């Protein structure tokens, strides 16, 4: 009985510790749980601070810029959720509600790129900590062509001019194409 109580207390403490880490990070957004849909693409990457710091040490010799970027990060979560005709409405609705929640929570919408037809619908949000510093980033993409929704949350200290580099280093296509998207939007 004592063991059960001890295990329960340890689990509770562990959960609270995990929650408190995220609660103190203004740039963290709870993306919730996504379920893979039968026959559809599904990708989930969830990297915490210790692993990112280890990764920064791994790449330090080869790419100082990438190492510096990774060192400043606390959490990276990427979700690519494929949808079919049956789940299309649900996924689109979830994405739109998520975007609306971010706006209500004071996140700044820095890029909006909407194409026609099957083009991508990209919206990028940032949580600012000062004039230049960003403490959180959210990329949302709805790609009607490939039937995919993409959610990315990067938590940590990021400079505005590092955004595109961050996308390249972490292979987050919408972020890597940020300059192109912004430029094409301006054009």
């Amino acid at each position, binding site marked *: 009985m004592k063991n059960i109580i001890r295990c329960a207390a340890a689990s509770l403490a562990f959960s609270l510790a*995990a929650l408190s880490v995220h609660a103190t990070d203004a740039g963290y957004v709870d993306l919730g749980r996504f379920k893979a849909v039968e026959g559809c693409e599904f990708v989930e*990457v*969830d990297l915490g601070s210790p692993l990112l710091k280890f990764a920064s040490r791994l790449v330090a010799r080869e790419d100082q810029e990438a190492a510096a970027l990774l060192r400043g990060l606390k959490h990276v979560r990427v979700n690519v959720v494929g949808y079919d005709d049956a789940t299309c409405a649900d996924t689109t609705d979830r994405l739109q509600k998520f975007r609306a929640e971010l706006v209500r929570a004071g996140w700044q919408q820095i890029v909006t790129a909407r194409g026609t037809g099957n083009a991508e619908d990209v919206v990028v949000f940032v949580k600012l900590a000062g004039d230049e510093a960003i403490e959180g980033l959210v990329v949302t993409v709805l790609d009607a062509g490939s039937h995919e929704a993409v959610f990315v949350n990067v938590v940590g200290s990021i400079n505005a001019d590092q955004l595109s580099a961050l996308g390249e280093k972490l292979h987050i296509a919408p972020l890597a194409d940020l300059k192109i998207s912004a430029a094409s939007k301006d054009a």
Partner: protein
Amino acid sequence: MNPVESASSQPPAPRRKLWRWVAVLAGAGALLITLSLWNLFTLSRETTALRKELFDSLPLPASPQVQVSAGPVLLGLARTALSVIPDVPPEARLALRSVRAASVGVYQLHGAVESSDRVKLFVAADRAMAQRRWTRIVGVNHRRDTVLVYMPADFAEGDSLRVCLAVCAEDKLVLVSAVARGDELLELVQQHHRLAKL
């Protein structure tokens, strides 16, 4: 008293004791070899738990093709053997030094894994690993491939890297777990970088 008589009447105790020690050592050696062989063909605890949960969730029969583990003892022996072999690339020595334990299982699935089964794999694997306080850091479901990578939820910088992964591709299920020392992995990367520059 005749000194010769006195000597012959004493029991030959030292020789009997020696045989007893030889028997104990031989028994311990046999036990060690049996345990090593058992460990060699048994997966690590995490991988065993993951395999059980995945097999339970799949409606297909599966048969093992390869199932092998190398623990600290076996890897230590391999390191010792490698140290006396000349002309071994330094990276190989370092790579072996960084790995503390490794476990690999390859299974043949008798039938095609349906999309709905792949979704079940995710749920089953997450459940098995969450019970052991491991968290999924990567999950991919792409066409006929499923990749799941887990790490201990309480992994801290400086800890040994412990990774457990499951790959279900076509009609094969591959399970791998490994424990590696982070600092030596870093050294390996740095050495590789140095060698690449030469």
